[in-house]
C-alpha cells in the first residue's frame, strides 16, 4: 500500500463475477479500484452503472469520490502503461468462456494473451501482487480430490476453455516465481446470488434450465406424451456432483483472498464443499417446471436417433457438455469456513435463481432498472414505433452498429394500420415520423398487423414472415435485407408481450 488507499486494478468488471468483485472490494473503505473498461469507455460505464445500480451501488458517486477510476483499455494490447501508476495489486478477472475455439481466436485471445499482457504490464510497472481468477475445472478430466496447487503437468483438458485457463495459470505461476506473489483463485460454476437469485448472465447450468423450460412449454400444448414421463436421455451421471456456487459467495471469498497479505504464491479453490448431485438438479428442475421422465444416459454427443423431445431439449446444443459426466471434489480453505449443515445451494435457493432468470427473460432484462409498460388493451403499433423504439434502441444492439445509417419505413396493414418512418444515423434512432412530411425512405417493410404482433413478440422471425410471402421489402432490398439480422437481434433483446390477457404486462429489455 503506497498511500491512503490500497490501489487495486480490476479487469472483467462488467462480467457476472466482476461487478460483484468490485462491490466486495469497495466494501473495504481503504480500497480504490481502477477498473479496465472496453472502449468506448462511456458505453462501458453505462453498462457498469446499470449493473452496480442493481446491487445498490452508485457508480457516478463512487467515481466522484475517486473510489472507482475507469481506465479505457481492451485486452490483450490496448492498455497503456501510464495508466498503471501507483497500482498495488492487479486482480485479473477478465475471461472468455467460449468452450471451443471458433476461428475468432477465442478463448485463447482473452484468456492467454490477455493474461500475458497483464503480467507484462505488471512487470513493466513494478506491480508485485497479481491475483488471477481461473476456474476449478482447470484440472480437466482429472478424477478424485483436486489439491489447491498448480499442476505443471498438463492435465487431460477437455476443451479450449480449460486449456486456455491452464495456460494462463502457468503464465501467472511462472510470473510469481520470478517477479512477485501470484495468487490463483479457482471458482467452480457460478450461479445466482444466494439471497436474491440475481444473475447478469445465464450460461453454464442455466442453459440446462432454459432447455427444460423449452421442453416444459412444448408439453403445455396438447401432447400425446405424459408431461411427467417424457422420453429424454440426459447425457451424464446422476450421482456425480454439480459444483455450483453463488456468485456473491465466490466474489466475497476472492476479494478476501486478494486483500489478504500473502507472503507466497498460492492457489485457492472457491468451490462448493457440499454441492448438489446432477440427480438433485434434475429433481429441482423437474419440480420447478412440473415435468419429469428424463433418464441419465451414457450415450454420447451427438445423440443417435434423437426423439422429438430430445430435439427440443438439445435445441440449444450440447448443454450438458462434459460436465455432467463425473463429479470432482476440491480441497478448499474457503469452503472450510462454511458452518456444518449449511448448503451453499439448496432446492429453495436454486429455484430462486431460476425464477430470477426467468423473470428477466434469462438475463436479457433488468427489471429493477429498466421497465417499459405496454398500455392495456390490444398491442398498438403507434405505441411501439413512437414510444417503445425511441426508448429501447439506445440501449440495444442497434446503437452499437456504428455504421448503420438508414431511413426505414414500416407500413402496417390490417385492423390497426399506419406508416412510420424511422431515421437511423450511426446506430442511433434520430426520430420517428408519420404522415405527410416524413423523410423519403431508402427501403420499406410492409406487413400485416397480425404478423407485426408475431414478430415483435418473437413468435415468428421477421425473415420467416418474409419468406412465407407475408411481408414485403421494397426499395433498396439489399439494405432492407441487411437490416433484418440487426432487427432480429434487437427483437431478441426487447421482446414485447402482446397478449390482450397480459395487458399492462412489462415489456422487457436487455440491460446486461
Amino acid at each position: 500500500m503506497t498511500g491512503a488507499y490500497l490501489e487495486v486494478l480490476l479487469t472483467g468488471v462488467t462480467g457476472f463475477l466482476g461487478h460483484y468483485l468490485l462491490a466486495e472490494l469497495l466494501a473495504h473503505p481503504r480500497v480504490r479500484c481502477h477498473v479496465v473498461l472496453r472502449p468506448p469507455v462511456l458505453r462501458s460505464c453505462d453498462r457498469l452503472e446499470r449493473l452496480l445500480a442493481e446491487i445498490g451501488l452508485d457508480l457516478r458517486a463512487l467515481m466522484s469520490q475517486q473510489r472507482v477510476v475507469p481506465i479505457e483499455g481492451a485486452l490483450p494490447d490496448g492498455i497503456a502503461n501510464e495508466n498503471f501508476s501507483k497500482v498495488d495489486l492487479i486482480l485479473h478477472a477478465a475471461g472468455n468462456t467460449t468452450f471451443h475455439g471458433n476461428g475468432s481466436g477465442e478463448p485463447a485471445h482473452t484468456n492467454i494473451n490477455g493474461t500475458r499482457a497483464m503480467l507484462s504490464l505488471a512487470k513493466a510497472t513494478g506491480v508485485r501482487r497479481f491475483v488471477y481468477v481461473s476456474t476449478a475445472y482447470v484440472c480437466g478430466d482429472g478424477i478424485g480430490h483436486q489439491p489447491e496447487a498448480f499442476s505443471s503437468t498438463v492435465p487431460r483438458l477437455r476443451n479450449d476453455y480449460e486449456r486456455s485457463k491452464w495456460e494462463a495459470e502457468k503464465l501467472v505461476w511462472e510470473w510469481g516465481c520470478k517477479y512477485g506473489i501470484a495468487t490463483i483463485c479457482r471458482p467452480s460454476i457460478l450461479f445466482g446470488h444466494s439471497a436474491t437469485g440475481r444473475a447478469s448472465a445465464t450460461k453454464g447450468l442455466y442453459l440446462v434450465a432454459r432447455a427444460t423450460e423449452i421442453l416444459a412449454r412444448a408439453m403445455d400444448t396438447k401432447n400425446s406424451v405424459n408431461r411427467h414421463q417424457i422420453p429424454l436421455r440426459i447425457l451424464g451421471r446422476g450421482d456425480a456432483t454439480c459444483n455450483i456456487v453463488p456468485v456473491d459467495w465466490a466474489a466475497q471469498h476472492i476479494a478476501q483472498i486478494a486483500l489478504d497479505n500473502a507472503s507466497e504464491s498460492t492457489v485457492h479453490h472457491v468451490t462448493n464443499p457440499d454441492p448438489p448431485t446432477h440427480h438433485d438438479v434434475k429433481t429441482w428442475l423437474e419440480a420447478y417446471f412440473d415435468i419429469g421422465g428424463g433418464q441419465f444416459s451414457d450415450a454420447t454427443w451427438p445423440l443417435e436417433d434423437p426423439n422429438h423431445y430430445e430435439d427440443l431439449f438439445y435445441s440449444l446444443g450440447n448443454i450438458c457438455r462434459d460436465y455432467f459426466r463425473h463429479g470432482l471434489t476440491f480441497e478448499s480453505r474457503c469452503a472450510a469456513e462454511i458452518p456444518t449443515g449449511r448448503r451453499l445451494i439448496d432446492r429453495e435457493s436454486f429455484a430462486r435463481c431460476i425464477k430470477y432468470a426467468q423473470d428477466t427473460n434469462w438475463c436479457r432484462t433488468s427489471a429493477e432498472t429498466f421497465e417499459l409498460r405496454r398500455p392495456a388493451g390490444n398491442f398498438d403499433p403507434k405505441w411501439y414505433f413512437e414510444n417503445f423504439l425511441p426508448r429501447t434502441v439506445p440501449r440495444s444492439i442497434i446503437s452499437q452498429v456504428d455504421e448503420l445509417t438508414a431511413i426505414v419505413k414500416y407500413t402496417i396493414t390490417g385492423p390497426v394500420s399506419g406508416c412510420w418512418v424511422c431515421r437511423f444515423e450511426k446506430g442511433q434512432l434520430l426520430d420517428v415520423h408519420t404522415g405527410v412530411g416524413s423523410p423519403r425512405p431508402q427501403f420499406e417493410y410492409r406487413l400485416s398487423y397480425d404478423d407485426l404482433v408475431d414478430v415483435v413478440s418473437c413468435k415468428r422471425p421477421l425473415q420467416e414472415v418474409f419468406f412465407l410471402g407475408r411481408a414485403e421489402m421494397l426499395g433498396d432490398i439489399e439494405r432492407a435485407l441487411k437490416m433484418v439480422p440487426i432487427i432480429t437481434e434487437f427483437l431478441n433483446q426487447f421482446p414485447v408481450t402482446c397478449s390482450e390477457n397480459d395487458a399492462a404486462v412489462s415489456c422487457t429489455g436487455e440491460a446486461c
Partner: protein
Amino acid sequence: MLTDSTITEERVRISGKGRELEGLLAYPAVDARCAALIAGPHPYLGGDMLNNVVSTLVKALASQGSVTLAFNYGGVGASEGGPTDKPSTMSEFWKNGTFQEEFDWIDDAGSALASLRQWCDLPLVLIGYSFGCWAVARNLQQSCIEAVVLISPNPTQHDFEGLSSCPAPLLMVHSDNDFTCSVPAMMTWFESIREPKTRTQFPASEHFFRGHETAVATTVLAFLKHHRVLGS
C-alpha cells in the same frame, strides 16, 4: 428423426474447424445414387438450413435418390461459433457487405462436405444458393465433384475462380430481377465460365424464389438426371 413414406430426415452434428455444426441429413428409403451438399445463404441475410429454397431442395433431392446434407453455418441455429462481436461484424457488413469471419463459414461448408464424404461413398453434387455459391466455389478443389449447381450467385461480389479447376457440369439458376446482380452482369460472367454449363433464368423471382421453390428444385433434378447423376 422425421420420416415420411419416401425419405428420412435426421438432425446430425458435423465436426467443423474448432466447432460443431448442426446439419440436416435427408436420404431416400431405397438405395441412393448420389450425395448432395447444399450451402445456404449468408447467415446475416436469413441463411439457415430451413431456408425456403434450401429445404425444398433437401426434400426434392432426397426423394429422388440423393443423400442430401444441409447445414447451419457457425452461430446459426444449434451450430457453435459465429462472430463473437456481433455489433462490429454487423456494422462492417452494413458498410462493406462483407467481413473477415465469413471465411469461417466457407470453412464450415468444407467441413460439411468432408463429413458427407465420410458418411457415404457416392458421386458428389455441390449446390450453393446465394452466399452458399461462394462457399461451394471455394471448396471445389477438395473433392471429385460430379455436378455443381449455383443458385443466385453474386459474381459482382464474390470470386468464382474455383470453378475453372472443376470440370463437372455446371447449372446456374438465377432470376431476371435479382437485386444482387443485374442480368447483363450475370450473363457476362456466365459466358466467361468454362464448359460444360447450363443456365436457367426464372422470371420475376427476385433473389428469393418465393413461390418458385418447387420449380427451382425441378430444374435442378432435371439437370442432375440429364447428366446421369440421378436416375431418370
